[in-house]
Structure formats: C-alpha cells, structure tokens
C-alpha cells in the first residue's frame, strides 16, 4: 500500500464518539495561549482576516482572497446584467409580433447577453474560484504572481465596462451575435463603434484570462505544500489546472482572430472578406477552436465544485479519484479536436471526423457523472444547501448532456442547428449547470470566506424556485427548436404551439427572477449575523478547511500532514485506526521535534492522543 493508493476498504466504525474526532478548531486553538475553548467564534473575531479594510486597500490589493472575492462579486454583477438582458429577450418573445424593442436593439441585446454571460460572468467566476481556492487547497500563501493577478482583474473590469458602454455608442452595441461571424461583423455590415468596443473588450478580458491561467499553472506547479503531490490535490484544483491549460491554448487564438478582425474593420485588411480573397470560414475555424474549449473552460471549474461537495455531504471519498482526473485530462485533450461540430451545416468540414470526436467526448463526461453518483453511493447523505444545489447541477447537466449527444450527430444537427433546440441545449449545460454549481459553491464556501453560514430555509426556497423556474424557461425551447423556430429572432411564425411554448418560457423567467429574492435576503441577513463558524463547519476534506474562517493573511500558520487527498479528514480521524491515512499519525509525531513553526499535536488537544503511535500500523 502506497500513500498514493491508500486502502480505504476498512470496516465502518460503529458508535464513534464524536468527541474522539479531532476538530481543526481545537488544533488551531491549541497553540494560542489561553485559547483553549475551541467552540464558538470569539477567537476568530479578533483574528486578522487578511482582507483590505479601506477602499484604497481594495483597489490596490494583490491578495488572492481579496481578488477572489472581487472576481466573484464582479462576475455576479455581470450575471445580474446578463440576466436582465435575458428579461428583455423573454419579454419580446412572450407574444408574437414586435412589442418592446426595435430589431436593432433586440439584436444588440442577445449579442451582449450571450457575450456578458460567457466572457464576463461564467469564465471569471471560475477565476474567482481559482483565486480564492487554489492557494488554500494546496497550502500556499498566495498565487505565484500576486501583482499580475491584480492586473488581470483590472483588465477584466475595464474590458467588461467597455463592452457594456457599447450600448451608449453611436449605432448601439455590437449586434452580430456572440460569435461574430464575418462578413456580418465586418466594417461594411456592422459599421458602428459598438462593434469595435466589443472586439476590444474581448481582447482585454481574453488577455486577462490568459494571464490568470499562467498564474494558476505557476502556482500549482511551484507552490504546493510539502506532501501535496499532484495526486493528492483536490479535484477542484485539478480541474482549475486543466482549465488553465485550455485557456492558454484557446484564448490567444481568440485574441489573434479578433485582432485580425479589427485590422479588417479599421484598416481594410482582407482576412475574412470574401469579395477580395479573404475567407469567412477561416474565422469560424479560429473562433470555434477557441469556442469549444471555451465551454469546457466554463464548465470544468464548476465540475470541480460539485466534486468537492458530494463527498463531504455523503461522508465518502471522491469515488474513482484517478479515473476522474483521467476523465478531465481526456476532456481537455479531446476538446481541442471537436470545434467543427459548430460548423456541420457549413458543408465545408469533414463531418465524420468531428462527429466522432464529439461523440467520444461524451464518454469521459459520462464517467464524471457516474463518479459523482459513486461518491454518494453507500454514503450517509445529508442535504444542506450545497448538496441540494449540487444534485440540481447533476440532473440539469445530464439533461443538457443527452441533447449534446443528439447535436453531435450531423444527421440530426442539420435540422437542429441554429434553432431553439440549441438554445435549450446550451442553457442546460452552460446556464443551468453553471448557476446550480455556482450557488452550491457560494453556500459551501461562504462560511470559509465570512465565518457565517447562510440560511438553510432560504436556500431551500431558492433551490426549488430555481429548479422549477429553470426548467419552465428552457425545457420547452427543445420543442420550439425541433418545430423549426430559429434562434436570434425577435418575432416568430404562426406555427402551432410556438406561442404557447414561448409564453411558458417567458413565465419561467419570472420564476427565475423570484428565485433571486431568497438568496439576496440570505446574504443580507448573513451580513448582520455574528461570526459563528469555526475552521471546518462541514467536516470537509481539503486544506482550506484547516485554517480559520476567514483565513488569516497568507492563509496558514499551521498545516496538517498531507498524506492523501483528504488531509483534513485524515486529521479528524487520527485517533481511529483504519480510518484515514495511517501515515498521518506517524508524520505528526515525527514533526514534533523538528519544525517549530508547525504546531505539534499537543496534549491539550481534545480527545485521546493518536492511538496509531503505538506502532501497530502497517
């Protein structure tokens, strides 16, 4: 048995006395003189939170936790903006005919809705997770390049503002759809300044993302704590690592393609101009070479979120950890060779090849689904808010996954492409799953970030409203698409049931809006509440739970021994043979004499001293 492959088949423990479990709070308190009482949050109240205290402090911070919070808040603001723009779309489509907005404005609205959601909300929220969690999960004090990190954040903010300001430009915002196909996006068909602003905005946010990816990769490769081997990293960190590599591969291609587009527009270059030897299809190849990895760049961090959550609330290890890592790597690799499934209907790509790669990518994705179910199988599952939202994620993702397999068949895509079926599909996989996992993440890590829990009752309300609202909004769009309603239209033909399905979808939007209310109330209530939570409120597994909530500046003044991918679990069960990794107790004892900066497991620790020190472990 190696440390890499711990034997976890031990018998379940009967009648464990909860007091015998080691709590991180007790360990943290152990070294503070007089801080023996590990319960309650008083000792955390006086704790240096490590977050900026002034506005200038926030504006100039390079701290990964502060920037992580800033990323999260900023991207949630963009979610609200994108969601409001979706309201304009749903209002316009609630009835046939044109009611609220002009065609020009409608086109700008769906373009900016899509662009905001993809570039300014979903991807940056992944970076929020990367910022806040990666250093904590690998036992590092910060990202490798803190100032570069701050620079990335501000590039993103300015990029976002420029995109939104497009609505104020002469001629309105960009209105060529989020994938900006030339010649429609060229100077002839889209002359306005709004289009240029859209291009510049995406180059800026793309550059921001590229820099963050470099930062995350450098951090994970260079700053892991002693003992944190690659195969002991939490899946969340693994996914962010793979995501970052995909960003490095994809974003520069997008920036380059956009730069070429801007040269076409401003200086009369002819890269994409068919009237003068240019090639519109070249853009599509470049764009989708970015665009397909992009959807996994959006999704993988959120896959990571639920992979952290399922095991904690089922009290089980991640099922098939290595298979899961392998699946993620396979997805990363395959995702670079599926891009032309977005181009089946052009008739200019080798459909059979791309149909094969696109179908294949379903397999590692399916493996993940079964790993998640496997992590719950045989467990002892409780359904606190993070778990509810994770299960919501799981079912939504499966519903979006099966329609993805349908669309990966060119035979069927020839009918469904560019219809509302596609709109339904990608809102299930990119919209629904992201939003469910996003709230799972917020409910899960909120106690870490603030030291408080959010209301369970309000979370339940939010969950059910979201579940019902989401499916009411998007499910019937499958029917619309199959029936022949094209996407990106402000009005629709008098086909049977078009009116009905559209009206239901627009009604669903109202339920979605209602689902925001309990969340906002929960947040506001939490701001007024006192700090109550200790380091490890969920009895979780990874290192971020081994430090106080909120974590101090530079995160840790103490780390448990890392002998498996669940160091905090191993610590909790250290007094019990056969649970957790037996090497931990040994490492703990070894450490006592050598490192004075690492607090030894002192006698004042609640519960019994480690029984495994008696030398009876294998």
């Amino acid at each position, binding site marked *: 048995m190696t440390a890499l492959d711990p034997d976890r088949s031990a018998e379940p423990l009967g009648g464990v006395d909860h007091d015998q479990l080691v709590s991180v709070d007790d360990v943290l308190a152990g070294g503070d003189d007089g801080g023996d009482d590990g319960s309650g949050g008083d000792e955390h109240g006086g704790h240096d939170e490590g977050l900026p205290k002034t506005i200038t402090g926030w504006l100039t911070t390079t701290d990964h936790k502060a920037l992580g919070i800033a990323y999260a808040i900023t991207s949630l603001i963009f979610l609200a903006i994108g969601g409001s723009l979706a309201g304009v779309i749903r209002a316009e489509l609630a009835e046939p005919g044109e009611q609220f907005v002009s*065609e020009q404005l409608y086109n700008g609205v769906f373009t900016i809705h899509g662009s905001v959601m993809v570039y300014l909300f979903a991807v940056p929220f992944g970076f929020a997770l990367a910022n806040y969690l990666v250093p904590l999960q690998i036992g590092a004090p910060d990202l490798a390049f803190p100032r570069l990190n701050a620079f990335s954040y501000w590039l993103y903010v300015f990029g976002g503002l420029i995109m939104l300001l497009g609505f104020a430009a002469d001629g309105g915002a960009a209105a060529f759809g989020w994938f900006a196909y030339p010649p429609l996006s060229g100077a002839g068909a889209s002359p306005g300044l709004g289009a240029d602003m859209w291009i510049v905005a995406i180059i800026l946010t793309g550059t921001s993302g590229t820099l963050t990816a470099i930062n995350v990769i450098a951090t994970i490769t260079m700053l892991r704590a002693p003992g944190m081997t690659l195969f002991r990293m939490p899946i969340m960190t693994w996914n962010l690592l793979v995501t970052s590599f995909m960003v490095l591969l994809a974003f520069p291609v997008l920036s380059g393609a956009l730069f070429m587009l801007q040269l076409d527009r401003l200086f009369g270059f002819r890269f994409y101009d068919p009237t003068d030897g240019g090639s519109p299809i070249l853009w599509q190849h470049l764009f989708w070479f970015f665009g397909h990895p992009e959807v996994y760049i959006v999704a993988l961090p959120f896959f990571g979120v639920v992979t952290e959550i399922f095991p904690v609330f089922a009290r089980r290890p991640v*099922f098939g950890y290595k298979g899961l890592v392998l699946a993620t790597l396979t997805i990363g690799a395959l995702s670079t060779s599926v891009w032309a499934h977005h181009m089946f209907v052009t008739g200019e790509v080798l459909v059979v090849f791309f149909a094969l790669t696109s*179908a294949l990518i379903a397999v590692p994705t399916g493996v993940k689904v079964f790993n998640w*179910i496997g992590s719950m199988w045989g467990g002892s599952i409780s359904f606190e808010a993070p778990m509810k939202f994770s299960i919501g994620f799981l079912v939504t993702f*499966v519903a979006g996954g099966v329609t993805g397999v349908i669309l990966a*068949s060119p035979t069927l895509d*020839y*009918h469904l492409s560019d219809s509302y079926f596609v709109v339904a599909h990608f809102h299930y996989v990119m919209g629904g799953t992201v939003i469910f996992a996003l709230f799972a993440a917020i409910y899960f890590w909120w106690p870490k970030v603030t030291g408080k829990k959010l209301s369970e009752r309000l979370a339940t309300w939010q969950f059910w409203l979201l579940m019902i609202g989401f499916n009411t909004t998007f499910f019937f769009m499958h029917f619309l698409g199959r029936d022949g309603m094209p996407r990106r239209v402000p009005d629709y033909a008098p086909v049977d049931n078009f009116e009905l399905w559209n009206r239901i979808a627009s009604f669903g939007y109202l339920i979605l809006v209602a689902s925001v209310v309990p969340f906002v109330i929960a947040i506001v209530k939490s701001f007024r509440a006192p700090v109550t939570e200790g380091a490890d409120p969920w009895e979780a597994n990874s290192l971020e739970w081994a430090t106080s909530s909120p974590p101090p500046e530079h995160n840790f003044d103490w780390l448990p021994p890392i002998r498996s991918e669940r160091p905090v679990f191993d610590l909790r*069960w250290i007094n019990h043979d056969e649970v957790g990794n037996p090497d931990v107790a040994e490492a703990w004892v070894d450490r006592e004499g050598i490192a004075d900066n690492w607090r030894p497991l002192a006698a004042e620790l609640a519960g019994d001293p480690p029984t495994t020190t008696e030398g009876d472990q294998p």
Partner: protein
Amino acid sequence: MSLDALLAGLDPPVTSQADETEWVWDIYLYLAIGVAAFIAVLVLYVIIRFRRRDGDELPPQKQYNVPVELAYTIIPLLIIGALFAITVVTVQAIEEIDDDPDLVVEVTAAQWQWQFDYPDSGVSVIGSGEEFPELVLPANSSVTFELQSLDVIHSFWITAFRFKRDIIPGSPGRFSVDIEDVAGYYPNAGVCAEYCGLAHGTMRFEVRILETDEFADWIAQQQAEGSQG
C-alpha cells in the same frame, strides 16, 4: 401517443433524406430519454436509500471499484459507437449529390430576401416587401439546390426537409434531395437559420410542392408571365 404530438407545428418529412433523419432522430431521442431517466432514477435511489439517518456510522471509505469503473466507461463507449455508426451511414446518404437531377434550383440569399431561379426554364421567383417568396417544387422528383449569397452568411433551412445548409459568400454550395409523393403547401417551412443582421427574423419563405404535371403548368404559367412583363 407519439412524443411528436407535442411538436404539432412541425411539417411531416417530405424527402427520402428527411425520412432517414427521422428514424435516426427517433433512436437518439428515445435513447436520450432512456439514459436521462436511468440516471434520474439512479440519483433518486441514491438520495433516498443513502440519506443520513440517526445513528449512522461512518460509511465505508472504499474509493475505487475498477470493474464498475470500467463498466461505466465501456458501456457508454459501445452505445456511442453504435450511434456514431448510424450517423455515418445516414449522413453520407444525406450528403450525396445528384449530378443529374430532375430539377435544379438556384437559391440566392441576400440581406434579407430570397431568390429562387429555375435555370432550365428561365423562371425566377423573388419575394416582395410584403410577401414571403414561394419556393415551388415538383413531387416525386430529385432536386439539386445550388446556393449562393450576395452579402453575409445565411442558412437555407426547410424544416420539412429536416435539413439546412449555410450559404457562405464566396463559396457556393449545393445539396440534393429526393422529394416524395407529398404535394402540399408548407407556409412555415422555409427559414433563414443563420443570423444575418437586422431583419434576419423576417427572412422566411413558403414551400409549395406540386404534382409533376401541375408543376409543369406552373412553370409554363411563370414563363408566360415573365415574357409579358
């Protein structure tokens, strides 16, 4: 009851290629529903069967089960392989170009109007500001469409064909269909599916399929009108 009852608005398939698509659709659809239902039931079972109860102990911490992991990798791989085979066979049939069709129609797309030319007879149909143009086709015949765009990318979608093809400026495209014995009027079947700017939403056309002799009459009538005007 067929699921398609919910899809009341969709015209029945009118080409032999669309028939191919339809049976592939059925297979994929029922499989998709089956897989989704299977996983939903599995999840439901797990959350009921393994919910936390009073006095629960620490559950078994077994992390790997290689046979199970292999099974849930290989079985999906086999299903995917079968689906892929079906797709390859049908897509190749659908993509086959008929170089000697009964009729050639040249489709010209421009922001935001369609023009249909019948080069064999010199007939040309173009939409007016108020009316969608009508694409008239003969039943029981093979047709090859030749597509070109005068400005941006459009997409020629006839829902009753279960088929669309992008029309990319600078690279004309073609495809062929075999229209079956389905004479009828399909007023909502013609759509521009690729977003093409301001009035993309109104870039539609109607489809009328006539019996072969009626079609000949129609051509003759158009020719007569054309030579007058």
